[in-house]
């Protein structure tokens, strides 16, 4: 039984290339993930900062996944789904839109720079848009600097 991570399972080698923002991107598999595939198919170049996590629908993306990324120290998060009305599951992305409309306000309010959270609609046909979105997101996230919310040095005591 391996429920909580144990000593031997730890993989602690440093993973981020110094000085570069690391961004997690949650993509629905029908539109945005396919759009990212298309960007590859058409050899569109974009920065290598984004790591994609594939989900069935953007509605699967719990805002707390986004929070976890920021809590763990990733520099930015992108959530991307189908355009409204084009959801494979008919209405999942409408829920995503509402959820994150609220959640981003909460993030900002507790003091997370708005530069760190992004959302986009990228369809399976929008490879170019995907590349553009990544470029813009990387630029914006990097403008906020590295995530130091919970790093030891930044911890404010007293």
């Amino acid at each position, binding site marked *: 039984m391996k429920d909580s991570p144990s000593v031997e399972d730890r993989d602690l080698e440093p993973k981020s290339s110094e000085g570069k923002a690391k961004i997690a991107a949650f993509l629905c598999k029908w539109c945005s993930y396919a759009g990212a595939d298309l960007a590859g198919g058409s050899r569109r170049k974009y920065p290598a900062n984004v790591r994609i996590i594939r989900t069935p629908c953007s509605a699967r993306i719990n805002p707390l996944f986004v929070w976890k990324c920021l809590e763990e120290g990733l520099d930015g998060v992108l959530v991307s789904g189908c355009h409204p009305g084009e959801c494979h599951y008919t209405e999942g992305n409408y829920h995503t839109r509402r959820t994150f409309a609220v959640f981003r306000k*909460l993030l900002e*309010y507790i003091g997370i720079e708005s530069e760190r959270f992004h959302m986009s609609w990228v369809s399976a046909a929008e490879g170019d848009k995907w590349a553009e979105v990544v470029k813009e*997101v990387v630029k914006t996230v990097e403008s906020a600097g590295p995530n130091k919310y919970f790093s030891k040095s930044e911890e404010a*005591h007293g």
Partner: protein
Amino acid sequence: MVEQLRQKAKELLRNRKVELIIGYQRSNNNIFTTPCFIETEDEVSRLVWDKHCIYNLSSYLKEIKKGVGIVAKGCDVKSIVALIQENQIDRDQVKIIGVECQGQVDEKGQSLEKCQSCQVHIPGIYDVLIRSKTPLSKNEPEESAEEYSAVEELEAKSTPERWRFWQQQFEKCIRCYACRQICPLCYCSECITEKTVPQWIRPSPSLRGNTTWNVVRAFHLAGRCIDCGECERVCPVNIPLRKLNKKLQKEIMAMFNYMPGFDSKNKPPLTDFRLDDPEEFVR
């Protein structure tokens, strides 16, 4: 009003409409009140009603769901509405003894902040209504300009200032979960913070775990919190939780024109959508 209240309570018990009435009784210091649970007609004389009845007793409906009568102010009734809306209680099983409320004061005798922008002096739903001798003619629905001033004050600060502000607050958190336990809408039998596989929230009181806990708590109440303010009242380390709750209430009102606690037939806003919801933040 107290006589009226006791009379109605007696009737409910006598006619076997309820087996138990949750109300307020005088506390040991003879000024303030504590919650009380009345089962017999004789005990009814313990019931009191005045400006010291701050508790939102509907929190007890999380546990006592059937054959129960409850003394409820307008704000408390909003959480009862939400509990009905979210399938937690059956309207038929709860007799609401609504009380007209002209505001409550804390132990220091200060008027509660929430009372100053109250729009529900008279409860929205009830089975019996206890009116004051000089009844308010109606609820004043006009939006108080002051309502979100505390939120706006914080919004006006810079992002790092807000971060510092909240970190100083969250740092104090001892994870006693009084905010959760008192909240009528935190009715989950197992809270997400207790989940270990995977571990969503670090269980220990570190700045990081505390921040996550407070973010999650606030978000899980988004569009549901009826602003009874009990969480803030019970917090032993005075974290201004209403500032968080009100912020989300404000945003949801602005974006989705939804105010929780008024209609049990509505879908809560985060389980609903409109085709033209705002999306200016989406690329």
